[in-house]
């Protein structure tokens, strides 16, 4: 399509120069480069401490900088708030869009809704630490209500039924329980890695499931989805082990739940449904939020516990 310009030019108008491809922080004027930061230094408050704060700011590229607030915190520490101008330029165009996970990260109400719609029953998962591994911290972080990184674990999802078998479960027990529960997915955690026990155990587990369900077409089609997690799986691919997915260090419950939806439910399970309305059922109204740093248990503890 062509546009008539008042000058009679029939070319398509040139894009306005994209100045935003090279950017600086924005305070109140384009290009002013203003940033704020706060930090503490392990020195008593005073002029010398402020000079130290300014030197740090200069080394961080803030020029000029000003200390707008300096407060003693006990005899040995000072807290600063500093504003300053950074000279750094960011070439935004050169920043590649980060690779996206192949499935969307869902909040708990969305997961519950998708399961309700696509299955009409609760999604059943069986979790365990297999072999001699007694470290349930991984499986508990994903499954326990307490959760991990401020996210509630899968037990908290109203539409997910969790069977957590705990530690030192044999492969035979796991297969038997998964069959009895008619599990949609099996989650196995492997923390102990001496003599590559985590790889051997996982392969043994996968082989047992494949043998138990010889006519299975795929995960969710004749056999449960097989998921393994642990800190030392970064050198292997799922197909090496015979599982459907490997999760590494730092995985949160929502990532696992979202993956289960992606892998086990048809894509249209996530389509907006006017009948459901914009709000979720009360039981999952607020579970997409990030945090409960309840002690103890915490973090432990249990403030708790």
């Amino acid at each position: 399509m062509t546009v008539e310009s008042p000058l009679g030019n029939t070319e398509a108008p040139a894009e306005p120069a994209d100045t935003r491809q090279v950017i600086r922080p924005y305070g109140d004027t384009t290009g002013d480069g203003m940033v704020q930061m706060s930090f503490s230094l392990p020195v008593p408050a005073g002029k010398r401490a402020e000079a130290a704060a300014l030197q740090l700011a200069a080394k961080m590229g803030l020029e000029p900088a000003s200390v707008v607030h300096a407060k003693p915190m006990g005899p040995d520490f000072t807290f600063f708030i500093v504003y300053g101008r950074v000279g750094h330029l960011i070439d935004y165009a050169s920043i590649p869009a980060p690779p996206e996970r192949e499935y969307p990260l869902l909040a708990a109400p969305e997961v519950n809704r998708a399961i309700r719609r696509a299955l009409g029953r609760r999604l059943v998962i069986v979790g365990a630490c297999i072999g001699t591994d007694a470290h349930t911290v991984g499986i508990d972080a994903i499954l326990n209500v307490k959760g991990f990184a401020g996210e509630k674990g899968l037990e908290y999802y109203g539409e997910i039924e969790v069977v957590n078998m705990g530690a030192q479960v044999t492969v035979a027990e796991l297969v038997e329980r998964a069959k009895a529960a008619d599990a949609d997915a099996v989650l196995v955690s492997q923390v102990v890695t001496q003599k590559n026990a985590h790889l051997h155990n996982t392969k043994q587990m996968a082989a047992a499931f494949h043998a138990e369900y010889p006519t299975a077409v795929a995960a969710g089609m004749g056999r449960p989805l097989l998921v393994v997690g642990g800190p030392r799986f970064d050198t292997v691919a799922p197909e090496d082990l015979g599982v459907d997915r490997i999760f590494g260090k730092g995985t949160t419950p929502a990532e696992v739940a979202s993956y289960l939806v992606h892998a086990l439910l048809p894509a249209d399970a996530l389509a907006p449904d006017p009948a459901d309305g914009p709000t979720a059922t009360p039981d999952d109204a607020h579970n997409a939020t990030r945090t409960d740093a309840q002690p103890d248990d915490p973090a432990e503890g249990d403030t708790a516990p």
Partner: protein
Amino acid sequence: MAPQRKLDLDPEVVRTARRLAARAAEPIIEMARTHTTVSVERALLRLAGLSGADGEGRPWANHLADAVRDQVGLEHGVALPVWDALARGPYGSLAHLAREAARGRVKFRLPAGSDAATATDAARKAARSGITRIDRRRAERDRMLRDTGDPAQPWIYLIVATGDIYEDIPQAQAAAREGADVVAVIRSTGQSLLDFVPEGPTREGYAGTYATQDNFRLMRAALDDVSRELGRYVRLTNYASGLCMPEIATLAGLERLDMMLNDCMYGIIFRDINPRRTFVDQRFSRQIHARAGIVINTGEDNYLTTADAVDAAHTVVASQLLNERFGHEAGLTDAQLGLGHAFEINPAVPQSFRLELAHAQLVRELFPDAPLKYMPPTKHMTGNIFAGYLLDAFFNLAGVMTGQSIILIGMMTEGIHTPWLSDRDLALENVRYVRDACGGLADDFVPRPDGFVAQRARQVLGETVELLDKVAGDGMLTAIAEGTFGVTRRPADGGKGLDGVVERAPGYLNPAIEILDAEDPHGARPGAHAEQEVPA
């Protein structure tokens, strides 16, 4: 200052709520009186002075209790087999016996006749010496409270959690100097699921520091120093929860901790610890806490991290009434019941602050003599630290308006990281401002009769009675199995630690429990009086 009645609650409804809570608690108490657990038995050994661990960190208390269990079972308790073996020799001490038992070199038996009488006497002496040590620590606290001074409420409660006790100590002292009245050392993630208490001073933990006897002692000593420096007794808190609740309670009593998290259902709901295990362990823990003069903190605030704070407000009150009943039965006074609740309503809910005031005032009036512990927002802290700072100020305001006793200081970096030095300093600045600006506001805050706040409070109380009626009718174990508290379903035979529960046989002996059951935990202390029993 005793909180005045401001909500015009119907006293008959309040009495009904307490009666229903007592009815619901009764079968659970009966179960606790007729069962023991591996941790209750180990707690007796620790009370008798057994400490230390083998080279791999497995405590001698575990070795000894396991050896007894393997050979003669635990249904009669460890006391008779252990002190019988000691009497027969040639072991110089409990520790020596435990080391030999760990090597499989001790043959235990259930003594009879005069051997049983000898073992019983020796076990009773050992238990008495432990209880006496706890009594002395309590007297020591009373002395320090007199000599250094007891801060006025609300107490400011702060958390440290570096994982390294030697890093925690200067942080706790700094927090005290900056105004903390109570310091809590958060435990390392997952400690509640360990079926043993780690040993020694520890320098590594994940998102918290292990609860160990040495860590308790080091921190209490450091806070004693700073208490004397400040002229104000700084209290120390830890967590009597998880699979080793009775042992940790015992260590807390022996090392003069002042407050302990100790909820009747937290471990069940949030840690999937078996309900029976929890209730049996809990009764012993609370008896020890009562004796040690320790204030317990209950964990109702946690329900609101999973359930909606408006919809589930009545579950908090129901649980507080249950915790109160279990606490009274175990000998805790009202002044030892730090019942928990929280400021967790979604700020996007219209009138959220008025709803918070209604809930906080309701709890204040239901438990006028309890040192209520009020918890800051966590669920709706978003990472926007500036908005979080504002929300924390509103929380502090609600705390002073409704006369809360212990205020946990909210951190604007909640959910981002464990608090930095500067996070704590800013948080204290926040609470100081609110306290200085309107510390006496509770005097002026009288909700309009039949106004929004009063009506909401009455509504929550009404829902509480309905819920307790159902819990008392169905039984607590059934209610927990159905997900009544904190959304999660926890069947009575599921979860961790059930294999550590043993029904007591006739002739079961635990001399610590004998003392705790028989004696007034507050003895001849001035001002001590028996709690009024509520008929079931």
